[in-house]
């Protein structure tokens, strides 16, 4: 059990900077997920935590000890690799006991540790098999078992589920989360899959281009993305982002998209007419409206029913818009849908910096009627 502190950690490959000063506190027992697109530096950061990459600048401490110059084995960590990295010539039991064997642990201790890990992961019947005789999910569990046997202060996971098929991935997701709840050990997990991050993490660190874009609890990131990158990255299907500007409308201001659509603005953001904006609304926050009270009208392009919900691709002027509805949409492509958007669930961003425009102190009632006029 240990907390982790990163203090202005930088990494250069040659002269090329990959991490531009990352500072982060991870509490004892917390499950933190680093998420971001390929090449954002999340795996490099994890490997620096593990001691597999040098720290160019800054300081990493685990459990209060600065570990910059420590070998991986001195850091009291265990790592699960993307391709499992099981030793092909050793049985499952030998794979799991390898770290104890290197440490010169007595046989009884090795057996006890392996038996305990095997029981946690339901591997007891596979201990004599070789990795090549196991399925992908079983190999993944052995890789986790190898980590558990070490009883480390910190678990590190490097995209452990990306080699599994979709169904198994969902099952393993639950297993890893259950494992964390059982062991209550600090875990740092890297993935590019935001669904994995949302479902498993206590806190998510969204990274992009070697920088931290936002740190927060999954639902905080979803509800209040700090900038355009996080807004676009978190959530599936992705948030609709429309460029345009605030315009004066009867009863307040509204948003005029570049494509021509007119949408309701939350009144509490204090946006003056003429201000350029990026308007964000999640597909699941667009609702079908009864004829009387609609905010805007859009043309259907493609309808994709999934059973539980219907995903509709629409055009609003010359912009495209995605909506996810609980109702079944029977209309043909080309026909018009009436939509309602709750202004309280609208996200506004500065086009130049991408920063979120938050609610000003004052708040007023929605201006939906005005926009429609």
């Amino acid at each position: 059990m240990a907390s982790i502190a990163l203090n202005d950690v930088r990494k250069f490959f040659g002269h090329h900077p990959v991490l531009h000063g990352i500072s982060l506190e991870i509490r004892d027992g917390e499950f933190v997920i680093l998420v971001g697109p390929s090449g954002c530096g999340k795996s490099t950061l994890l490997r620096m935590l593990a001691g597999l990459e040098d720290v160019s600048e800054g300081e990493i401490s685990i459990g209060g000890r600065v570990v910059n110059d420590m070998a991986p084995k001195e850091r009291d960590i265990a790592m699960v690799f993307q391709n499992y990295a099981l030793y092909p010539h050793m049985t499952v039991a030998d794979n799991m006991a390898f770290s104890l064997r290197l440490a010169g642990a007595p046989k009884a201790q090795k057996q006890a540790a392996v038996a305990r890990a095997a029981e946690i992961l339901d591997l007891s019947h596979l201990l004599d098999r070789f990795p090549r005789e196991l399925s992908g999910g079983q190999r993944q569990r052995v890789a986790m078992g190898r980590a558990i046997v070490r009883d480390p202060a910190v678990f590190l996971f490097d995209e452990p589920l990306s080699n599994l098929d979709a169904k198994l991935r969902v099952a393993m997701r639950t297993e890893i989360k259950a494992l964390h709840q059982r062991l209550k050990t600090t875990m740092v997990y890297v993935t590019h899959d935001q669904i994995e991050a949302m479902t498993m993490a206590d806190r998510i660190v969204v990274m992009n281009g070697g920088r931290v874009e936002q740190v927060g609890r999954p639902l905080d990131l979803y509800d209040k993305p700090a900038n355009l990158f996080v807004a676009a990255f978190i959530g599936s299907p992705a948030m609709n982002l429309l460029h345009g500007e605030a315009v004066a409308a009867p009863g307040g201001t509204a948003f005029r998209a570049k494509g021509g659509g007119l949408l309701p603005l939350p009144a509490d953001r204090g946006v003056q007419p003429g201000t350029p904006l990026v308007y964000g609304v999640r597909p699941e926050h667009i609702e079908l409206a009864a004829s009387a009270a609609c905010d805007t009208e859009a043309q259907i392009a493609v309808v994709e029913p999934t059973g539980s919900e219907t995903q509709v691709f629409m055009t609003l002027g010359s912009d495209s818009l995605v909506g996810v509805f609980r109702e079944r949409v029977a209309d043909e492509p080309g026909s018009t849908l009436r939509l309602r958007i709750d202004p309280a669930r609208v996200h506004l961003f500065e086009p130049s910096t991408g920063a979120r425009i938050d609610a000003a102190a004052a708040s007023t009632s929605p201006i939906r009627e005005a926009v429609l006029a």
Partner: protein
Amino acid sequence: MTDTTLTLRAPPAPRRRRPGFVAMLYLYASLFIVAAIVLVPLLTTAVGGFKTLGDLRVNPFGLPETWQWSNYWDILSGARYWQMLGNSLLIASMTVVLTVAVAAMAAFALAHVRFFGSAFLMNYFLVGLMFPIATAILPLFIRIRDLGLLDTYLGVVLPQVAFGLGMAILLFRNFFRNVPKELFEAALVDGGGYIRFFWFVTLPLSRPILATVAIVAFVNSWNNYIMPLIMLNSQDKYPWPLGIMIYQGEFSTDWQLVLAFITLTILPTVIVFFAAQKHIVAGLTAGAVKG
């Protein structure tokens, strides 16, 4: 209904075309020629060993007039043959152990450790591949003499190891480089370093290439003629290839005994090759370790 099932059926797998008569003829003829090139000298040698010297002179390729089993029996029942076998085995074993140990460690360093001059060092070893033993024999002799190793087993073994290293390092390095990097990182996290990774992970995974290098080193040592000829003086240290010299007199040579002796010395190598054929081919064509 029948139609549907018919259309759903997968298209028939393309039939492998049997080569035509001419192609088969060509194939068999060329295989026969290659086989003959290998087999005729072997058989001539083996059969020649059963002849008398006179018979051999008159009829070198045919079957012997009378089968002289005593030629083989005299060699087999004499102590010298077995002593030379022991010498050959000792020299070959020492060569194999040293070549494998040194080459594996060197190749591991060249494959996994980045250090200044590693590429240069690798190329330096590779240049050794192009260097025939015979051209170096004089300076080699002087050096071995200066080291005081003349007429010792080591005097033969050390140069053999040195000349075998280039090929062995090349084979090992290419194999080691295909061991996934994550395995090393996993071992690092598990508490190992380079040496333990080498010992506990790399070596057990490298059995095919270990076998290949060992067999190549063994056969080279087994067949080496010039090195023991130059380095060894006393007959009780002679390996097998030098055995034939005993039958070469100043004025006449007992060719039938030479042939019988050669046959008996080749035999174990042929047997070992057939036994280990699978490993040799696998090692030479091996590309990757499956993780």
